[in-house]
């Protein structure tokens, strides 16, 4: 199968004087259109790994290859461009822009490109909002939505530019169990329908069990890497 993400010998050391190594020589390939989960104890380095994968953070050494592009020698602008086109992010704290409506938040990845807004984009935004079940609240300011609604808006936003990869850091961490299930099922459906690759950090063992592959991080190393046949 095609690899869409490839991490090669990733090390991450924090601090200049007191050095703490958080990631140790990580090698990881993620297949196109797969749905993988990352689990592990608090402080094990999951978020660090995900942020490095998403080019938000730089590794101390090692290569990150995204959709066959090595990001090592790219400058900040090129990385921004890459994130805009290839990656969608969903975080635990929903991080919508409260100054904008749900609809505008969904359009945000397109708006920052400063290209003229056409009917095509508007329709896509409405379509995505409809897909995540938020047609009714699309013109609400982001600050006036429930946590689950905000997280579903964030999913619609992550999808807007049709990125091949979505990275999610505890996307259901702040939601009650009903909302958690809705949000997770939604991501699963998107993965099936559009073939979008998902890499999701979760604390919820039941959620991890429903993914194609479970990667456990322990003390900055991959401790366990399970193909989860039962999920298919």
């Amino acid at each position, binding site marked *: 199968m095609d690899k869409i993400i490839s991490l090669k010998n990733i090390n991450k050391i924090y601090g200049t004087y007191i050095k703490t190594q958080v990631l140790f020589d990580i090698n990881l390939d993620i297949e196109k259109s797969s749905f993988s989960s990352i689990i592990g104890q608090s402080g094990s380095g999951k978020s660090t790994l995900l942020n490095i994968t998403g080019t938000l953070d730089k590794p101390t050494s090692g290569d990150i290859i995204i959709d066959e592009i090595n990001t090592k020698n790219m400058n900040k602008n090129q990385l921004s461009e890459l994130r805009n086109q290839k990656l969608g992010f969903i975080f635990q704290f929903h991080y919508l822009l409260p100054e904008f409506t749900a609809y505008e938040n969904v359009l945000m990845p397109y708006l*920052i490109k400063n290209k003229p807004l056409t009917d095509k984009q508007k329709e896509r935004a409405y379509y995505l909002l409809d897909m995540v079940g938020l047609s009714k609240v699309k013109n609400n300011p982001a600050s006036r939505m429930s946590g689950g609604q905000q997280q579903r808006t964030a999913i619609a936003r992550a999808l807007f530019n049709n990125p091949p990869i979505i990275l999610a850091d505890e996307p259901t961490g702040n939601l009650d169990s009903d909302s958690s299930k809705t949000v997770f099922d939604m991501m699963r459906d998107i993965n099936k329908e559009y073939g979008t690759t998902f890499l999701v950090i979760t604390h919820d063992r039941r959620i991890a069990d429903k993914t194609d592959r479970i990667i456990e991080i322990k003390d900055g190393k991959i401790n366990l890497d399970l193909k989860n046949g039962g999920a298919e």
Partner: protein
Amino acid sequence: MKFSLKTAFRFLMSNKAQTFLIVLGIAVGISVQLFISVLIDSLQKNLIEKTIGNSPHITVTEMSGGSVENYNEIIDYTKKEADVSAYDIVTEGPFFVLSGSENISVLLRGISMKDSIYNIKEKIISGNIPENINEVIIGKDFSEKYNINTGDKINFLGFKGGLLRKSATVTGIFDFKVSNLNSTWILTNNITAYDFFGVSNPNKIEFQIKDIFNSDIYSENIKSNFSNTGIKVSEWKEQNSDLLSGLNGQSISSIMIQIFVIVAVALGIASVLIITVLQKSKQIGILKAMGLKNRQTSTIFIFEGLLLGFFGAVIGIAIGMFLLWGFSTFAVNPDKTPIVKLYFGYRYIIISSLVGILSSVISAIIPAGKSAKLDPVEVIRNG
């Protein structure tokens, strides 16, 4: 650009109280700047107008006090060189007026009665302009002191070679609002003056020009162009150097005040925008994660500065104009004329707008730089 502008606007609108206060702060600063610049400029114009409004800016005489024979050439040349607003051909000299047993020393001046720099028509408070030979007008103070009125005949006594006896009829009384002139000047037309002094040319030419502050340059030009004819040229600036250095000092302190006000405003804007960058760090972090470039991030805050500056300047100019209106309406003399006549022009509005907008944009540079440096990981990690 469009995205940055829109985001800047939304960010400002998301904290209306803070935005309102800083716009008000800018507006107060700009209004003070506008008010002070107009007021000080007007004060200076008033002072200059009072000092030289009714006196020549450039004066041409003959070295030894004789006639200026080539006066027509000098006038033509000066008109070509400078923007002459008025000029006078003057024939003047001392005379005595015989009043009873007294000999009163006066300055008899023959001038161009109709379009003189002295604006005689407006200065006459009774009677008429002396148009014919042997007609004169006298000053208000002179008339009151010696009880001489319109229609009276006065006798003159002069010395040139021997005794000169002349007489003339008073056709009117002038008031220059300067007691010295009102009591010692007697004005007439040039024909009468030629006859009184026994000459056929004037002995002085007086010019008023539009750009008064270049009088020294024109004066030098006239001097060098007619250097071989024995003329002497003087101009108002060398005669009023104390006034000018006073005005200069005033201008400098006015500019200092304006600069300090604007610096205070700029610091206010900068600190508010730095706080805004902190307040909006989550938003900036998530936008950067989505692919917003650092340059675009800075533009958001530059636009915030621009918007604050724009609205601050608009409101500030409105307040400033209101203050100026209030000043010219309520700060008046007993006769209802304003204490300081205000000279207002679009120039001031343009300068104040530029000052407001530029200082806001410059103040936004540090906050914008801070926002560009903001690391999205920090924000995402720390919630």
